[in-house]
Protein backbone atom coordinates (compact mmCIF):
# COMPACT_ATOMS: atom_id res chain seq x y z
CA UNK A 1 0.00 0.00 0.00
CA UNK A 2 1.20 3.47 -0.90
CA UNK A 3 0.63 4.93 2.54
CA UNK A 4 3.17 2.60 4.06
CA UNK A 5 5.80 3.82 1.59
CA UNK A 6 5.12 7.31 2.83
CA UNK A 7 4.98 6.74 6.58
CA UNK A 8 7.52 3.94 6.98
CA UNK A 9 10.60 6.13 6.40
CA UNK A 10 9.39 8.66 8.97
CA UNK A 11 10.24 6.43 11.89
CA UNK A 12 10.55 2.64 11.60
CA UNK A 13 12.59 2.82 8.39
CA UNK A 14 14.01 6.33 8.69
CA UNK A 15 16.84 6.92 6.20
CA UNK A 16 19.16 8.66 8.64
CA UNK A 17 18.64 6.94 11.95
CA UNK A 18 17.71 3.44 10.76
CA UNK A 19 19.15 3.01 7.26
CA UNK A 20 22.09 5.27 8.23
CA UNK A 21 22.06 7.03 4.84
CA UNK A 22 22.70 10.70 4.17
CA UNK A 23 24.55 11.42 7.41
CA UNK A 24 27.11 13.66 5.64
CA UNK A 25 24.74 16.46 4.73
CA UNK A 26 22.94 16.10 8.05
CA UNK A 27 26.16 17.28 9.65
CA UNK A 28 26.70 20.16 7.26
CA UNK A 29 23.42 22.03 7.01
CA UNK A 30 22.01 21.74 10.52
CA UNK A 31 23.63 24.78 12.12
CA UNK A 32 20.46 26.78 11.52
CA UNK A 33 16.81 25.79 11.06
CA UNK A 34 16.22 27.67 7.81
CA UNK A 35 18.85 26.01 5.61
CA UNK A 36 17.93 22.66 7.16
CA UNK A 37 14.31 23.26 6.20
CA UNK A 38 15.09 24.21 2.60
CA UNK A 39 17.60 21.39 2.28
CA UNK A 40 14.91 19.00 3.51
CA UNK A 41 12.44 20.33 0.95
CA UNK A 42 14.97 20.11 -1.88
CA UNK A 43 15.86 16.54 -0.98
CA UNK A 44 12.16 15.58 -0.88
CA UNK A 45 11.74 16.94 -4.42
CA UNK A 46 14.87 15.24 -5.72
CA UNK A 47 14.29 11.82 -4.11
CA UNK A 48 10.66 11.79 -5.20
CA UNK A 49 11.36 12.65 -8.82
CA UNK A 50 14.55 10.61 -9.08
CA UNK A 51 12.55 7.59 -7.87
CA UNK A 52 9.71 8.40 -10.26
CA UNK A 53 11.91 8.84 -13.33
CA UNK A 54 14.04 5.80 -12.60
CA UNK A 55 10.98 3.69 -11.98
CA UNK A 56 9.48 4.77 -15.31
CA UNK A 57 12.74 3.95 -17.10
CA UNK A 58 13.50 0.81 -15.15
CA UNK A 59 12.60 -1.72 -17.86
CA UNK A 60 14.68 -0.06 -20.58
CA UNK A 61 17.86 0.66 -18.65
CA UNK A 62 20.80 -1.52 -19.66
CA UNK A 63 21.96 -2.97 -16.36
CA UNK A 64 25.63 -2.42 -17.19
CA UNK A 65 25.26 1.36 -17.25
CA UNK A 66 22.57 1.46 -14.57
CA UNK A 67 24.58 3.51 -12.07
CA UNK A 68 25.60 6.05 -14.72
CA UNK A 69 21.99 6.55 -15.76
CA UNK A 70 21.01 7.06 -12.13
CA UNK A 71 23.75 9.59 -11.68
CA UNK A 72 22.72 11.54 -14.78
CA UNK A 73 19.07 11.65 -13.74
CA UNK A 74 19.88 12.70 -10.18
CA UNK A 75 22.46 15.29 -11.23
CA UNK A 76 20.05 16.79 -13.75
CA UNK A 77 17.30 17.05 -11.12
CA UNK A 78 19.64 18.67 -8.62
CA UNK A 79 20.77 21.24 -11.18
CA UNK A 80 17.12 22.01 -11.94
CA UNK A 81 16.38 22.52 -8.23
CA UNK A 82 19.44 24.72 -7.88
CA UNK A 83 18.44 26.85 -10.88
CA UNK A 84 14.91 27.30 -9.55
CA UNK A 85 16.16 28.24 -6.09
CA UNK A 86 18.50 30.82 -7.64
CA UNK A 87 15.70 32.30 -9.71
CA UNK A 88 12.88 32.34 -7.19
CA UNK A 89 14.28 32.21 -3.64
CA UNK A 90 17.67 33.81 -4.09
CA UNK A 91 18.30 34.46 -0.37
CA UNK A 92 17.83 30.84 0.52
CA UNK A 93 19.93 29.60 -2.37
CA UNK A 94 22.72 31.86 -1.14
CA UNK A 95 22.49 30.34 2.32
CA UNK A 96 22.61 26.79 1.03
CA UNK A 97 25.36 27.67 -1.46
CA UNK A 98 27.33 24.52 -2.23
CA UNK A 99 25.09 22.17 -0.30
CA UNK A 100 22.45 22.11 -3.02
CA UNK A 101 25.02 20.69 -5.39
CA UNK A 102 25.95 18.19 -2.75
CA UNK A 103 22.45 16.70 -2.84
CA UNK A 104 23.83 14.73 -5.79
CA UNK A 105 26.12 12.89 -3.43
CA UNK A 106 23.38 12.32 -0.87
CA UNK A 107 23.37 8.57 -0.37
CA UNK A 108 19.62 8.51 0.35
CA UNK A 109 18.77 9.30 -3.24
CA UNK A 110 20.92 6.69 -4.92
CA UNK A 111 20.20 4.27 -2.11
CA UNK A 112 16.45 4.51 -2.65
CA UNK A 113 16.71 4.45 -6.44
CA UNK A 114 18.87 1.35 -6.32
CA UNK A 115 16.98 -0.40 -3.53
CA UNK A 116 13.40 0.53 -4.39
CA UNK A 117 12.67 2.41 -7.61
CA UNK A 118 14.39 -0.07 -9.94
CA UNK A 119 12.08 -2.84 -8.79
CA UNK A 120 8.77 -1.12 -8.17
CA UNK A 121 5.97 0.75 -9.91
CA UNK A 122 6.30 4.52 -10.53
CA UNK A 123 3.64 5.70 -8.09
CA UNK A 124 4.90 3.48 -5.25
CA UNK A 125 8.44 4.69 -5.96
CA UNK A 126 7.34 8.31 -5.94
CA UNK A 127 5.73 7.87 -2.54
CA UNK A 128 8.81 6.04 -1.28
CA UNK A 129 10.90 9.02 -2.40
CA UNK A 130 8.62 11.54 -0.69
CA UNK A 131 8.60 9.42 2.47
CA UNK A 132 12.36 9.11 2.62
CA UNK A 133 12.78 12.80 1.91
CA UNK A 134 10.36 13.59 4.74
CA UNK A 135 12.17 11.25 7.10
CA UNK A 136 15.44 12.95 6.22
CA UNK A 137 13.95 16.43 6.64
CA UNK A 138 12.46 15.51 10.02
CA UNK A 139 15.80 14.43 11.46
CA UNK A 140 17.52 17.47 9.94
CA UNK A 141 15.03 19.77 11.64
CA UNK A 142 15.37 18.04 15.02
CA UNK A 143 19.17 18.29 14.88
CA UNK A 144 19.02 21.89 13.66
CA UNK A 145 16.58 22.77 16.47
CA UNK A 146 19.08 21.84 19.17
CA UNK A 147 22.09 23.24 17.32
CA UNK A 148 20.53 26.62 16.58
CA UNK A 149 18.83 27.00 19.97
CA UNK A 150 21.92 26.23 22.02
CA UNK A 151 24.55 27.36 19.52
CA UNK A 152 23.06 30.72 18.52
CA UNK A 153 20.14 31.23 20.91
CA UNK A 154 17.73 31.62 18.00
CA UNK A 155 15.23 29.52 16.01
CA UNK A 156 14.66 30.37 12.33
CA UNK A 157 16.80 33.43 13.18
CA UNK A 158 14.23 34.62 15.71
CA UNK A 159 15.79 35.27 19.09
CA UNK A 160 14.61 32.78 21.73
CA UNK A 161 17.17 33.22 24.48
CA UNK A 162 16.91 36.88 25.61
CA UNK A 163 19.91 39.13 24.91
CA UNK A 164 19.93 40.20 28.57
CA UNK A 165 20.85 36.68 29.69
CA UNK A 166 24.23 36.84 28.00
CA UNK A 167 27.40 37.46 29.98
CA UNK A 168 28.30 40.28 27.60
CA UNK A 169 25.15 42.08 28.73
CA UNK A 170 25.64 41.34 32.41
CA UNK A 171 23.78 38.02 32.42
CA UNK A 172 24.86 34.47 33.22
CA UNK A 173 24.52 32.67 29.88
CA UNK A 174 26.68 32.09 26.86
CA UNK A 175 26.14 30.12 23.68
CA UNK A 176 27.49 26.59 23.47
CA UNK A 177 30.18 27.06 20.82
CA UNK A 178 30.65 23.37 20.02
CA UNK A 179 27.03 23.20 18.82
CA UNK A 180 28.15 25.12 15.73
CA UNK A 181 30.66 22.47 14.73
CA UNK A 182 29.89 19.28 12.77
CA UNK A 183 30.91 16.81 15.52
CA UNK A 184 27.99 18.01 17.63
CA UNK A 185 25.57 17.10 14.84
CA UNK A 186 26.96 13.58 14.89
CA UNK A 187 26.51 13.40 18.67
CA UNK A 188 22.92 14.67 18.41
CA UNK A 189 22.16 12.16 15.66
CA UNK A 190 23.64 9.48 17.94
CA UNK A 191 21.39 10.56 20.80
CA UNK A 192 18.34 10.54 18.50
CA UNK A 193 19.21 6.99 17.36
CA UNK A 194 19.59 5.94 20.98
CA UNK A 195 16.23 7.42 22.02
CA UNK A 196 14.55 6.03 18.89
CA UNK A 197 15.82 2.50 19.46
CA UNK A 198 14.86 2.49 23.10
CA UNK A 199 11.27 3.07 21.95
CA UNK A 200 11.50 0.59 19.06
CA UNK A 201 12.76 -2.61 20.64
CA UNK A 202 12.57 -4.53 17.35
CA UNK A 203 15.33 -2.35 15.86
CA UNK A 204 17.83 -3.26 18.56
CA UNK A 205 20.58 -5.56 17.43
CA UNK A 206 20.94 -8.67 19.56
Amino acid at each position, binding site marked *: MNLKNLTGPLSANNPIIVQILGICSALAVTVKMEPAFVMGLSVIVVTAFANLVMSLLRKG*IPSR*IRIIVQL*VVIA*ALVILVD*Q*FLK*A*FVYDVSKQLSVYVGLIITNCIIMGRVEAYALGNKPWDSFMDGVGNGLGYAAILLIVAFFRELF*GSGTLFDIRIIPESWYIANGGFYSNVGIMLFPPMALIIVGVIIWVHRSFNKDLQEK
Partner: protein
Amino acid sequence: MAKFNVNSNAYIIIYSIVMVVVVAVLLAVTSLSLQSRQNENMLNEKRQQIVKALGENPETASYADVVAEAAMLDKGGKAISGKSEADVFSALNDLTASFEAGEFPVFKAKNGCVVIPVYGAGLWGPIWGYIALEPDMNTIKGIVMDHSGETPGLGAEITTDKVQSSFVGKTIFEGAELVSVSMRKGGATNNHEVDAISGGTKTCDGVNAMLKTCLEDYLPYLNTNKSN
Protein backbone atom coordinates in the same frame (compact mmCIF):
# COMPACT_ATOMS: atom_id res chain seq x y z
CA MET B 1 10.90 -3.88 -24.78
CA ALA B 2 11.12 -7.64 -25.02
CA LYS B 3 12.31 -7.70 -28.61
CA PHE B 4 15.40 -5.60 -27.78
CA ASN B 5 18.36 -7.02 -26.03
CA VAL B 6 18.81 -4.25 -23.47
CA ASN B 7 22.35 -5.34 -22.75
CA SER B 8 23.70 -5.29 -26.30
CA ASN B 9 26.48 -2.81 -26.98
CA ALA B 10 24.56 -1.01 -29.71
CA TYR B 11 21.59 -0.48 -27.44
CA ILE B 12 23.79 0.81 -24.61
CA ILE B 13 25.51 3.32 -26.88
CA ILE B 14 22.26 4.58 -28.39
CA TYR B 15 20.68 4.74 -24.95
CA SER B 16 23.56 6.83 -23.58
CA ILE B 17 23.53 9.21 -26.54
CA VAL B 18 19.80 9.79 -26.37
CA MET B 19 19.92 10.23 -22.60
CA VAL B 20 22.73 12.76 -22.72
CA VAL B 21 21.10 14.78 -25.50
CA VAL B 22 17.72 14.87 -23.75
CA VAL B 23 19.23 15.92 -20.44
CA ALA B 24 21.46 18.52 -22.07
CA VAL B 25 18.54 20.10 -23.91
CA LEU B 26 16.43 20.11 -20.77
CA LEU B 27 19.12 21.79 -18.69
CA ALA B 28 20.04 24.28 -21.38
CA VAL B 29 16.42 25.36 -21.83
CA THR B 30 15.92 25.76 -18.07
CA SER B 31 19.13 27.67 -17.66
CA LEU B 32 18.35 30.05 -20.51
CA SER B 33 14.79 30.67 -19.44
CA LEU B 34 15.72 31.41 -15.83
CA GLN B 35 18.88 33.35 -16.54
CA SER B 36 17.44 36.85 -16.74
CA ARG B 37 15.62 36.30 -13.46
CA GLN B 38 18.77 35.05 -11.77
CA ASN B 39 20.86 37.95 -13.04
CA GLU B 40 18.20 40.35 -11.85
CA ASN B 41 18.39 38.77 -8.38
CA MET B 42 22.15 39.12 -8.27
CA LEU B 43 22.06 42.71 -9.45
CA ASN B 44 19.40 43.54 -6.89
CA GLU B 45 21.46 42.02 -4.14
CA LYS B 46 24.45 44.18 -5.07
CA ARG B 47 22.28 47.29 -5.16
CA GLN B 48 20.81 46.46 -1.78
CA GLN B 49 24.25 45.94 -0.29
CA ILE B 50 25.40 49.31 -1.60
CA VAL B 51 22.32 50.98 -0.12
CA LYS B 52 22.92 49.18 3.16
CA ALA B 53 26.57 50.23 3.23
CA LEU B 54 25.39 53.82 2.99
CA GLY B 55 23.46 53.29 6.22
CA GLU B 56 20.04 53.24 4.60
CA ASN B 57 17.50 50.46 4.98
CA PRO B 58 17.26 48.61 1.62
CA GLU B 59 13.61 47.78 2.41
CA THR B 60 12.58 51.42 2.35
CA ALA B 61 15.25 53.22 0.30
CA SER B 62 15.85 52.12 -3.26
CA TYR B 63 19.19 52.22 -5.02
CA ALA B 64 18.00 55.01 -7.31
CA ASP B 65 16.94 57.12 -4.28
CA VAL B 66 20.35 56.96 -2.69
CA VAL B 67 23.04 56.59 -5.34
CA ALA B 68 23.73 59.40 -7.80
CA GLU B 69 26.28 57.78 -10.05
CA ALA B 70 28.22 54.59 -10.64
CA ALA B 71 31.66 55.31 -12.08
CA MET B 72 34.80 53.49 -13.08
CA LEU B 73 38.15 54.95 -12.03
CA ASP B 74 41.60 54.44 -13.50
CA LYS B 75 44.79 53.92 -11.47
CA GLY B 76 45.19 57.67 -10.99
CA GLY B 77 41.72 57.97 -9.51
CA LYS B 78 40.21 59.70 -12.55
CA ALA B 79 36.88 58.61 -13.92
CA ILE B 80 37.09 56.55 -17.11
CA SER B 81 34.59 58.01 -19.53
CA GLY B 82 32.13 55.93 -21.48
CA LYS B 83 31.46 53.37 -18.79
CA SER B 84 27.78 52.70 -18.23
CA GLU B 85 26.23 51.64 -14.97
CA ALA B 86 25.87 48.13 -16.36
CA ASP B 87 29.64 48.04 -17.03
CA VAL B 88 30.37 49.03 -13.45
CA PHE B 89 28.05 46.37 -12.06
CA SER B 90 29.43 43.69 -14.32
CA ALA B 91 32.94 44.59 -13.12
CA LEU B 92 31.76 43.72 -9.59
CA ASN B 93 31.26 40.12 -10.71
CA ASP B 94 35.01 39.72 -11.03
CA LEU B 95 36.69 42.41 -8.99
CA THR B 96 40.08 40.69 -9.15
CA ALA B 97 40.18 40.92 -12.92
CA SER B 98 38.80 44.44 -12.87
CA PHE B 99 41.42 45.68 -10.40
CA GLU B 100 44.17 43.98 -12.38
CA ALA B 101 42.94 45.70 -15.54
CA GLY B 102 43.27 49.01 -13.68
CA GLU B 103 39.55 49.64 -13.46
CA PHE B 104 38.16 50.53 -10.07
CA PRO B 105 34.38 50.77 -9.60
CA VAL B 106 33.03 53.41 -7.27
CA PHE B 107 29.51 54.50 -6.35
CA LYS B 108 28.81 58.12 -5.51
CA ALA B 109 25.85 58.76 -3.25
CA LYS B 110 23.62 61.81 -3.50
CA ASN B 111 24.78 63.01 -0.07
CA GLY B 112 28.46 63.05 -1.15
CA CYS B 113 29.42 59.71 0.37
CA VAL B 114 31.23 57.16 -1.78
CA VAL B 115 30.94 53.38 -1.76
CA ILE B 116 33.99 51.28 -2.60
CA PRO B 117 33.75 47.56 -3.31
CA VAL B 118 36.34 45.40 -1.58
CA TYR B 119 37.31 41.75 -1.83
CA GLY B 120 39.73 39.43 -0.10
CA ALA B 121 40.24 36.00 1.36
CA GLY B 122 38.84 34.74 4.64
CA LEU B 123 39.75 31.48 6.34
CA TRP B 124 37.82 29.08 4.09
CA GLY B 125 37.04 31.09 1.00
CA PRO B 126 36.51 34.52 -0.50
CA ILE B 127 35.10 37.44 1.46
CA TRP B 128 33.86 40.66 -0.09
CA GLY B 129 31.93 43.74 0.76
CA TYR B 130 31.24 47.43 0.28
CA ILE B 131 32.66 50.19 2.40
CA ALA B 132 31.00 53.61 2.42
CA LEU B 133 33.01 56.72 3.30
CA GLU B 134 31.69 60.11 4.39
CA PRO B 135 32.33 63.08 2.06
CA ASP B 136 35.59 63.73 3.97
CA MET B 137 36.84 60.40 2.48
CA ASN B 138 38.07 59.49 5.92
CA THR B 139 35.22 58.56 8.23
CA ILE B 140 33.43 55.26 7.63
CA LYS B 141 29.76 55.75 6.96
CA GLY B 142 29.01 52.05 6.92
CA ILE B 143 30.23 48.68 5.78
CA VAL B 144 28.63 45.54 4.42
CA MET B 145 30.54 42.29 4.33
CA ASP B 146 29.71 38.88 2.98
CA HIS B 147 31.47 35.57 2.66
CA SER B 148 31.05 32.24 0.95
CA GLY B 149 32.14 29.77 3.59
CA GLU B 150 33.35 31.20 6.89
CA THR B 151 32.59 29.26 10.08
CA PRO B 152 29.04 29.98 11.29
CA GLY B 153 29.05 31.67 14.68
CA LEU B 154 32.73 32.62 14.38
CA GLY B 155 34.17 34.06 11.16
CA ALA B 156 30.71 34.28 9.60
CA GLU B 157 29.79 36.87 12.24
CA ILE B 158 31.29 39.48 9.90
CA THR B 159 27.90 39.54 8.18
CA THR B 160 26.07 40.57 11.36
CA ASP B 161 24.96 44.12 12.12
CA LYS B 162 26.77 43.89 15.43
CA VAL B 163 30.17 43.57 13.78
CA GLN B 164 29.43 45.84 10.83
CA SER B 165 28.03 48.66 12.95
CA SER B 166 31.24 48.72 15.00
CA PHE B 167 33.05 50.10 11.93
CA VAL B 168 30.80 53.14 11.68
CA GLY B 169 32.53 56.40 12.61
CA LYS B 170 36.04 54.92 12.49
CA THR B 171 38.61 56.75 10.35
CA ILE B 172 40.97 55.34 7.75
CA PHE B 173 43.55 58.16 7.60
CA GLU B 174 46.11 59.06 10.26
CA GLY B 175 47.23 62.49 9.09
CA ALA B 176 47.96 61.97 5.42
CA GLU B 177 48.75 58.27 5.77
CA LEU B 178 46.20 55.63 4.88
CA VAL B 179 46.15 53.24 7.83
CA SER B 180 42.81 51.60 7.02
CA VAL B 181 40.73 50.06 9.78
CA SER B 182 41.59 46.79 11.40
CA MET B 183 39.84 44.31 13.64
CA ARG B 184 42.03 44.00 16.70
CA LYS B 185 42.23 40.98 18.95
CA GLY B 186 41.75 42.09 22.54
CA GLY B 187 39.59 45.08 21.68
CA ALA B 188 39.88 48.36 19.84
CA THR B 189 42.40 50.82 21.27
CA ASN B 190 42.09 53.76 18.87
CA ASN B 191 39.89 55.18 16.13
CA HIS B 192 41.38 52.95 13.42
CA GLU B 193 40.47 49.72 15.20
CA VAL B 194 37.36 47.72 15.99
CA ASP B 195 36.95 44.67 18.21
CA ALA B 196 37.89 41.40 16.53
CA ILE B 197 35.63 38.35 16.71
CA SER B 198 36.83 35.81 19.25
CA GLY B 199 37.39 32.50 17.50
CA GLY B 200 37.31 34.24 14.14
CA THR B 201 40.87 35.56 14.10
CA LYS B 202 41.79 34.24 10.67
CA THR B 203 38.67 35.74 9.12
CA CYS B 204 39.37 39.06 10.87
CA ASP B 205 42.93 39.02 9.50
CA GLY B 206 41.38 38.50 6.07
CA VAL B 207 39.07 41.48 6.59
CA ASN B 208 42.02 43.66 7.64
CA ALA B 209 44.02 42.70 4.57
CA MET B 210 40.98 43.14 2.32
CA LEU B 211 40.27 46.68 3.54
CA LYS B 212 43.90 47.74 3.52
CA THR B 213 44.81 46.50 0.03
CA CYS B 214 41.59 47.58 -1.63
CA LEU B 215 41.52 51.04 -0.06
CA GLU B 216 45.14 51.54 -1.13
CA ASP B 217 44.05 51.04 -4.73
CA TYR B 218 41.68 53.96 -4.30
CA LEU B 219 44.23 56.20 -2.57
CA PRO B 220 44.69 58.67 -5.46
CA TYR B 221 40.94 59.07 -5.72
CA LEU B 222 40.51 59.52 -1.97
CA ASN B 223 43.34 62.09 -1.84
CA THR B 224 41.92 64.14 -4.69
CA ASN B 225 38.46 64.24 -3.25
CA LYS B 226 39.62 64.75 0.31
CA SER B 227 41.39 68.02 -0.53
CA ASN B 228 38.37 69.40 -2.34
